[in-house]
Each structure stands twice: as structure tokens, then as C-alpha cells.
């Protein structure tokens, strides 16, 4: 099982869109996927039309495996379940460690309902201080969307610093360019510079700024379901292909 966290310390950079479309792409490729919505704004759940779960606010939640398994909901797509979570990060630490332990009661419970996930995608909130470093430790990769502007360049530096300060391996960081507008010279220059600074760490694939992706809010569905052959759909496909081979997901 692999865990991918989608994280950004800045809002509105295409983080939830990446989580939503990545989850759909993985599931379509036959990877049994669980998408956990950890962002209080609940955007991932919104795109999948899943209502936030009340059960998850129960304090006893994580002491009771059954309650947890009950909170997982099927999406409208095969191989993809959603955890419309709204929980404390301490609880989420417990959840992740149990998911990583193949002998835990939680794993066995999920296996028994045919929900033994190959991939867990976390849509994380845009806040470094409250998100436990354990979540970063547990993750196999932390996807970071970077809008190619000078300000975002600075924000990404902050993340790498945070990782170094906390003694976390920054090799797990997988940045990618998001909301790219190719006609803007600034975007082009920033991308060139950052690729030079960070070497091969950045994904080759990038997500353009396009109406296909903007319309996700209106469709409330992954881009591939309504614009698979348009710019947006093709971009997420390339994004998935590269990521899955880099993380050996398929």
C-alpha cells in the first residue's frame, strides 16, 4: 500500500483538484484507492458529491474500527472510495499507522469488506503547524502544487526548510507546476529557474490553467469524466502516468 499526501501551504493552487483527479486516474487504472478529505473546506468530497460524515465527529471514533469502516463511502466510480473525514490530526495519525500495519484490526476489517486499498490519497489542509509530521512520515510521497510565480517559489522553499528542520526526508517531496499559463513570460521563466534549482525533483508533467479544470465545480466530477480528450483531461492523464511510474504504483 502506498500513501500520497497532496499538500500546499497556500490555498487555491489546485491541490484538491490534483487529489480528486489523481484518485480517479488511479482507480480507472485498477488501483484500489481511498481518497481521504482532510481539508476542512471539504473540496474533495464536494467534487465527488459525498456529504460530510457526522459520525466522524464522535470522540470514540477511532477506538471503534467498525465506526471507521462505516464512514468510508463508495464513490460513483469503480475502485474508488472516499473518506469524507472531519477529524483531528491526532486521530488521523492513529488511522494512518493502523493502515500501515497489515496486522491491525482496521486493516483486517477493511480487507473483510473487500476494501484493501493499494493507494491512499490524502487531501491535506493548507497548514503546516497543525498537520502532524507523522502524516508526512507515513506518506510515500508528498505532492506539492507550485504555481510558477515568484511568490510560490518562496513558499516552496519554506516547505523544504520545514522538512529539513523537522528531520524529514525532503526526497519525498514531489513538486509539480500547477495552473500554468504558458502565454505568460513570468511563468515560463519561473519554471525554467526552478527546474534548474531543484533538478529532477519536479514532475515533467504540469497542470495548465484551463477552463476544463475550472468547470470541475460545475460538473462536480473528475475532469476525465467530461473532458478526457481536452487539455485538462490530457494533462491529468500525463500527470498520473508519470507519477505512477515514479512511485511504481501499477
Amino acid at each position, binding site marked *: 500500500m502506498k500513501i500520497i499526501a497532496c499538500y500546499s501551504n497556500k490555498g487555491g493552487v489546485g491541490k484538491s483538484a490534483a487529489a480528486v483527479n489523481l484518485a480517479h486516474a488511479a482507480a480507472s487504472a485498477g488501483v484500489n484507492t481511498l481518497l481521504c478529505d482532510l481539508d476542512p473546506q471539504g473540496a474533495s468530497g464536494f467534487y*465527488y*458529491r*459525498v*456529504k460530510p460524515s457526522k459520525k466522524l465527529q464522535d470522540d470514540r471514533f477511532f477506538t471503534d474500527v467498525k465506526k471507521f469502516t*462505516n*464512514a*468510508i*463511502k*463508495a464513490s*460513483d466510480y469503480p475502485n474508488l*472510495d472516499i473518506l469524507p473525514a472531519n477529524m483531528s490530526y491526532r486521530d488521523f495519525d492513529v488511522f494512518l499507522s493502523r493502515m500501515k500495519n497489515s496486522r491491525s484490526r482496521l486493516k483486517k476489517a477493511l480487507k473483510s*469488506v473487500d*476494501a484493501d486499498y493499494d493507494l491512499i490519497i490524502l487531501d491535506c489542509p493548507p497548514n503546516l503547524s497543525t498537520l502532524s509530521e507523522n502524516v508526512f512520515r507515513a506518506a510515500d510521497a508528498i505532492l506539492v502544487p507550485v504555481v510558477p510565480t515568484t511568490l510560490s517559489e518562496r513558499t516552496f522553499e519554506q516547505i523544504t526548510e520545514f522538512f529539513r528542520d523537522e528531520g524529514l526526508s525532503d526526497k519525498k517531496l514531489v513538486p509539480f507546476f500547477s495552473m500554468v499559463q504558458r502565454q505568460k513570460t513570468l511563468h515560463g521563466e519561473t519554471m525554467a529557474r526552478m527546474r534548474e534549482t531543484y533538478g529532477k525533483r519536479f514532475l515533467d508533467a504540469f497542470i495548465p490553467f484551463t477552463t476544463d479544470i475550472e468547470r470541475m465545480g460545475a460538473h*462536480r466530477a473528475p475532469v476525465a469524466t467530461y473532458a478526457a480528450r481536452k487539455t485538462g483531461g490530457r494533462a491529468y492523464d500525463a500527470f498520473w502516468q508519470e507519477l505512477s511510474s515514479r512511485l511504481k504504483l501499477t
Partner: protein
Amino acid sequence: MLTLANSYEALWPGFEARKGAELARHDTVDFMILADSPQTLFAEQVAKLQPQLEEDVKTGFALLDNFDGDLRQSGRALLWMGDGLLLLDDRAASLFQALPGNQRFVADLPDGPVKNALADLPDLRCLLELTSGSLSRRNGALVDDEGKTRTRFTLLELHGTDGNVMLVQTEKLRGYEKAHGQLQAYLLAAADGGSGATAHIYHALVPDHLPYIAKPKTVFAPDEKAVVAATHVISAYLAVAQRNEEGIIADLDTEFLHDYRVALRKIRSVLSLFRGVYSDSQTVALKRSFSELMAPTGRLRDIDVYLMERDDYYRLLPESLHGGLEEMFGRFQKSRKSELRKLTRRFEGQAYARQMTSLQALFSDTSRLHMGPAAERPVHEYARELIWKRYRKVCKMGRAIDDNTPDELVHELRINCKKLRYLMEFFAPLFSRKEVKARINDLKGLQDNLGLFNDYSVQQVALQEVLDRAKMSDRGKKLDMAKSVGALIAILHQRQLDERARVTRSFAEFDSAAVQDSFRNQFQKVTA
């Protein structure tokens, strides 16, 4: 539409109706069966959820089962639906498997979940179409106010030649179990009480289907006249034989001929075992008549048995001797064809039809039969006496057998054991069914042992005959076959010796004090 029977349980084991619309059902069952297609189905919201239906797809369908009706009796229904097989089970989730070909035997199906779930069916029985017709399939979903799918379903409307039925497969989505329950409740209400049990598929699609029962249970009162009982048993088995004719002619599977012969053999054993119920001259005439019916089927059955042994024979011999086997089995296949043709002509001929009709008429009641001295005896007393005598005979013969007794006497013992079992089976309804079953079971170990001993000896003789009969111009081929047959006979001979060596012990096990007591208690005459 069917109306709901007195209890849900009767229609649908594991299903309970509770107060209101709340339903509980075995977790894994995922389909419902509506006796007909309600026009208004999904015309409005279901528990505040919006139904969405896709366009329908039309294909053909067939309802399949073997001749013994094993699927129906075990609460299952197998549907071929254009592109695959759907297996419904009263106690488990439905299974689907794609089916590219037109396989008739379970063993020939491609590997898959349906094939696995059918592993309990007898290998020798083919799947038959009970009925067929057109199928309309529609996928649908119940969707909430956010446009999220809460539960999915597939409507299958089956239009058969003799009736229609609608199946709704429902899909429970993780986290949305409530909606699934609401859908089931809605369907149940919409069907005006149709039900989930697969039995309803059969009722709706093949309402007039007459189940085939290879061992009919005849019931008679203890004080019934022996001649009436004998006549009933013969009449029932005559009907069994006739039910098999069609399957033999169509060459569906080898069990049709086998069952046909077993039925006639049982009739013959009634004639010889129920001594004195018919007059001597009539008994002789009837025995002859039934022997004449059986005789033309013997050769074909023998060939069927050889062909069944095929894999075993290939395993027994090294590859260097397979050439001779090939030659031999090629000959069997050829003569099977001509034997079947002969038998078919016979079944379709007028003489055969006349013979069967007159036998049927003769055994329809006792008025045309000539009574023997035992005809009027009360059947219970008569049966008890026959079984007890036969049991004593088996014991006497068995106790006389040791490891050096000639084979003929072992064969005699086998035949008497068989007669004892037939008697107990025929008269089972007169005694405690459970007890009779237990006695038959006591006998089973010994019978299996003797049966194998006999099979191996018969096979040796038959193989020798095959060789003697083969007219071959090609001396090389003849030599190949002789080598293979010789090797087989040697192996079968050893197997026969092994079985023979077990006979004394098998009999001793049967002849235990406990079994003796049981037979005595049940069948010995109570003296005042």
C-alpha cells in the same frame, strides 16, 4: 402478479418482514424477483431518491438446469444471457461469468466464479434449456439531491414462451447501506409481494415443468395388498424409463441411458423379488418382456462406460502404450455412433411404442394382472418377511466366505446384497425412513467393495472381448492394441485382487453385533 404467500419465510428463506418497510435479509443476497414487470416501477422518487434509468439492451436468455433439477432443488437458478451466465442463489450473492461458447457440461465451462459455484453438480449431467426467450436489461441508480449515486440496480425483464419474470439485481455501495435497504423495501412493495426466492423464477417461466425424479417415492399403507404395492412400484419406474427416452435419442448426456436401464432393472428385480404376487406364468412373461426392453441398450451402455474410463486408462499406462488406447477408443467412438443410431430407430419405431403403451396400461391398476398366491397379503408383513429372509441369506453366504472362497460365491454375495438394498428401498415408506436409510448405509461399505470387485472383473472380460472381436487388417495396429489391452488387464486384475482381499473384512464390519440387532429389531417377525 403473484400475491404474497402466507409468510415471507416460505418464499424466501432468510428473509424476514418487519414492522413498516424495514427489511432484513441475508447480507449477501443481492437480487429480488418480481413475479411480473410492474408498469409504474421507478415512475417516482424512492425514499426521496431520484431514480435514473439507462436505455435498455435486448438479448436472448435461457434458463438452464440439469435433468435431475439439481439447481432448482438447491435454491439456485442459472441464466444464460447472451454474453454470459448469471447464477442466482437463495443463500448467496449472485455470480456472473462471461461465456464465449456454447458449452453444455459444467466441466467444459471456462474457469470462473460460476463454474466454481457449480462444482457440486454431477459431472455426467449436461445443462439443459428449460425455457428460453428474450431479455431486456436496464441499468439504473437511485441518486440523492447532490447527484450522488446511493445505490445501483439492474432490471432484467425475461419474456419466456410460457411466462415472464423480472429480476432486479441490487448493488450495495459502501457507506450507503440504508439506501440499498430502501430500494429493496420499495421493490418488495412494488411487486405486490413477489419474492426473492429463485423458486419464483421457475414458477413464472416454466409453470408446467414436471420435475424428473429418478427414484420416485411410492407411498402405500401397511395393510395394502402386496400386489398393489408391486404394481405401483413398477408403474412408477416405467414412467421413469419413459422420461429418459427423449434424452437418449437427443444424446444429451450418458445419464439418460443409465437411468433408463436402472429403472428397467428395478422393475425386473420387483418381478423376481416380490415372489408370488403375480401368477408364475405372468411373472415369467413379464420378466422376458422387460429383458427384451433392456437387451438392445446393453452394448451402448458398455461403450459409454469404457469411454468414461478413458482418462483413467490413459493414466494407468505409460505413454508408449497410448497408441493402442487411441486405436481402441477410436473404435469405441465409431461403434457408439452406430449403436445409438440403432437404438434411436428402435425408440422411434411403432413396435416399441406399442410395447410401452401396453405395459403402461397393464400396470395402471391390478385389474389386468394375474394374481399369484401372495397377491393379497398385507404389504407390511410381506415386506418385512422378504427383507428378513434376504438379510439372513446375505449373512449366511457372507459368513461362509474366506480368502480362498471361489469368486463365483463372492459374486453371488454381491447380487444378494443388491437385492437386499432394492427391497429396503422399495419398501422404505413402510418403515421408518431414517432407520431404513441407516440400514442401507450399514450395507454400503460392503456393497462398494463388492461393486468394485465386480467392475474390475467385468472390465477385464470386456477388454478381452474387444480384442477378440477387432477385425483388423493392419497387423501393426492390432499388435499395438493388444499390448495396451494386455497391460490394462494386468492392472485391472491386480485391482480386482486387492478388492477381493478386502471382502472378508468388509463383511465382518457389516456383520457386527450392532447391525445384527438393528436388522432383527426392524425386520424380524414378532412372535407372540
